[in-house]
């Protein structure tokens, strides 16, 4: 059995037997390992949880953080909800689009970075908030967007 399978069994132990509660932790582990949740990965998770792939997919597609299409090696998610927008999130987003050479919702040609807009990240007083590989950068300016883009494409 794979390492992923074993890791998922450890997650299952945290919840009462016979429940499906380990599905979100399992999908997170799978995505961390494979980058995105391909049909094969969904099947692997389903097998580890003793569920059907159809059920696992129905859950995975409900949640924004799970990617059922390919994404880049890095994720840049710009909050464009009201508070961040008031601080200039749209300008930050456009700076990322310019620096990365792709539009929001797309991945750079070299497969390095996927750029997304995201709903409120819960850092409203410290906007514009950008999650870079799930870690928050606060008070991001368009200039910072250029620096972050270079950082990610170099790394």
């Amino acid at each position: 059995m794979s390492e992923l399978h074993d890791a998922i069994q450890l997650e299952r132990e945290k919840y009462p037997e016979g429940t499906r509660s380990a599905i979100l932790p399992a999908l997170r582990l799978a995505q961390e390992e494979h980058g995105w949740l391909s049909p094969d990965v969904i099947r692997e998770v389903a097998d580890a949880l003793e569920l059907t792939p159809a059920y696992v997919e129905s859950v995975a597609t409900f949640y924004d953080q799970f990617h059922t299409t390919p994404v880049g090696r890095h994720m840049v998610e710009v909050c464009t909800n009201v508070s961040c927008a008031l601080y200039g999130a749209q300008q930050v987003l456009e700076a990322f689009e310019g620096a990365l050479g792709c539009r929001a919702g797309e991945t750079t040609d070299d497969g390095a970075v996927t750029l997304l807009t995201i709903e409120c990240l819960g850092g409203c007083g410290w906007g514009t908030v950008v999650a870079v590989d799930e870690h928050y950068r606060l008070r991001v300016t368009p200039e910072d967007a250029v620096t972050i883009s270079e950082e990610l494409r170099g790394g």
Partner: protein
Amino acid sequence: MAAEVKELVLANATTSLPEYEASGGYAQLARARTMTPAQITEELLGSELRGRGGAFFATGRKWSFVPSKEQIPKPHYLVVNADESEPGSFKDNEIMSRVPHRFIEGCYITAHAVDSTNIFIYIRGEYSGPYEILVAALEELRDRPDIRGDVSLVLHRGAGAYICGEETALIESLEGKRGQPRSKPPFPAISGLYASPTVVNNVETMATVPVILAVGAAEYAKLGVDNSRGTRVVSISGHVVNGGNYEIEPGILLRDLIYAEHLGGGIPDGHRLKAVIPGGSSTVILTADEIDVGYDFDSLAKLQTAMGSAGVVCLDERVCMVQLGVRVSEFYEHESCGKCTPCREGTRWMTAILRKLEAGDATRGELDLLLDVCDRINGKCLCPLGETAALAVASYVAKFREEFVAHIDEGRCPFGDTSPLDHVLAPVAMHAREPAGVPA
């Protein structure tokens, strides 16, 4: 009410267990375990604490609804709602990050009060910062059976869904399903997680519990004003000098929250306040003329609005209210779980009409249609998501009607790109684009 910061929940901020214990941390847990559950619940009732998630339900009453194990012979669960996702609110983020042990102590005390040995903390998936702090805090407790007792505590990460802040959707999600609200009754106190008696409490509520035991219910209930006792951590953001979280006593004037030098600090760059969202984007908006109001439940209720999840968003005169409507409606459209037709279809209709209005292409009849759609969502869904979206947007129309009409009469947006909300790309708009594909 003095316009002062009053730190109880956020006091003596530390992520370190020895430092927390040195300032009296976990002493209330030890004391609570010498008390019966009923005695702790009595303390909470006396403190008049009301839930800090947004619904403002009396915490002690909620606990008292849990049946005895003789009545329902099943395990009791404590589920902590750390799925803070309301636009404008970021207080739980700061509470978990700055006082993780006070929060955890509150969870353990509450577990004892509701006769539970199983705690699940459902933390939103995006909060990797607070999550890592909580993981480290729990690691510090690994060798402390005196604190952990026989209680299991599981940190459960969400995966990006606003709706999971609704308690029954959260429970569904925690059970490994799509996060869609349940029909109530039965309420979670009777049949919640795994069809067992369950208490769902917010992060700030949990972090307040040890404070109440430390200062005493009677002292705590002297703070604030009638029906809004104690302290509240308020998130301030938007067009304001000092965006951040401030713990205050309810009853403080909203004007002071925004303008006091050591609080919001006023509106930056010589601009002037136009409107305030008082309690997260789900709440009815206030105009700049309505801010001489107490920031408390009763005072805000008189203006048909609420503290909600305490997210105060300030908007200056450059902001187009139709654009605000578009952006807020897009959020709720994106986050609607799709279960109830009025919300699923209604939020989409709201966005479509608002976009048409903003472009200057709508008629007066369509403005009426917008309000009609809002009305057809209200009171017709299992959870408040669609309803609060409708009430919020309808309040923009009610209080800034001349702006909406100007878009129709002029055939364009009078603000255009001078408004900071002009053509902001929402995720729902991004998703609507053709998939671009990813290079192999």
